[in-house]
Every structure is written in C-alpha cells, then in structure tokens.
C-alpha cells in the first residue's frame, strides 16, 4: 500500500494552523478565540506526529501528550478567567472588555 507523502500532513497542519490564527484574529467571542487556539495547538500536534512517524522516533509523539495535557490545563484556567469576567461584566466578548485603554 502506498503511503500518503509527508508533505500532505504538513500542508494540512499548516492550513489548520492558519485557520486557527485567522480565527483568533477575527473573532470577538472569548470562547471561540480559545477554540481557535486549541485548533492551532492540534494542528501542531498533527505536525509533530507526522514528523515522528517520518523519523521513526517516538519523542515527537510524547511531545504531543504534553501539548494535550497543557492544552487541558490552559482550558481550565481560561474558562475560569472567562467565567470571572462574565460574573463582573455579563459578557464574554473581548471588545466589550475595554477599560484598560487610553
């Protein structure tokens, strides 16, 4: 069976990363921004796994485990911060959180 060339994985990961980046830059809802960031991290995971299988070296996959764990910790902290903001301002739109500007 033929294998999918390595470049395709990297291309897919690059496209996903770009979509995530654009999402972060254009969306205004804190949760959706955070989801875009998760998409970026997952595209990096894809890159790492692709390289890992290409080299036949497991350290890339182990890195993916840690990225996942850290993404989970980030999700916990991020949701807590968004909740704290919601309690005070009743909004999760980042452009409505704008006191710190002058």
């Amino acid at each position, binding site marked *: 069976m033929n294998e999918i060339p390595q470049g395709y994985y990297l291309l897919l990961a690059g496209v996903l990363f770009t979509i995530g980046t654009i999402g972060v830059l254009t969306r205004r809802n804190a949760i959706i921004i955070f989801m875009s960031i998760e998409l970026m991290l997952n595209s990096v995971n894809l890159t790492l796994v692709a390289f890992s299988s290409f080299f036949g070296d497991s350290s890339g996959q182990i890195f993916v*485990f840690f990225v996942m*764990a850290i993404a*989970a910790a980030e*999700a*916990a902290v991020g*949701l807590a911060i968004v909740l704290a903001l919601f309690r005070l301002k009743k909004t999760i739109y980042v452009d409505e959180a704008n006191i710190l500007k002058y």
Partner: protein
Amino acid sequence: MLEAYFPLIIMVVFGFAVAFIFMLLSQWLGARRGTKEKQTVYESGMVPYGNARERFSVKFYLVAVSFIVFDIEVVFLYPWAIQFKELGIVPFIAVLIFIAILFIGYFYEYKKGGLKWD
C-alpha cells in the same frame, strides 16, 4: 498512488448510499401519525421545560473543568500501562509519584469544596 484510496472511496460512496436509501425508505414505507408527544423536544425521556438557550448553573462549568484536568492524566498512564511488564520498577515508582501529585490536586479540590454540588 491514488489506487490506494479506492477502498476508501467505495466505503464513502456505499455509506452515503445506504444512509440515503434508508432515509428514503422510511419516508415512503413508514406510517406517520403526528401526535403531541411526538412533536415535543426529546430530552432523554424527561418532560422538557424552559428554553433550550437558558444559562446553565456555574457548577456545571466547575465539574467540566475538573473533568478536563483529571481526565487527561490517562494520556500519561496509557503508554506506561501497555508496557507495564517490560518497564519494571523504576517507571512504576515514577507513576506512583505522578499519581501522588495528582492526588494533592484532588485533595485540594475536595477540601475547598470544588466537588460539592450544593
């Protein structure tokens, strides 16, 4: 190169076809009697109440956050568990330390009342 994908394409086409045919068959063959019960929203057998877009209690988020954090530990345990016999005692101790650290987090959350519902 593309021949490698041929089974995949067959599967996709077949899957779509089966799903589509079943939908059409049930449209044509099934008897339809619209009752009030059937029109209501399905909520696991409960009688639905309120608006679906209602806000949830913040406690749900707390449970979800705890779940995310403690759920991900499996990622680290799984590779160790499948190699358990080959790896021997040192990784076992390492995993014990890992669990102990997790337990500190659990203890903190339990004592601070993070797991209490009321």
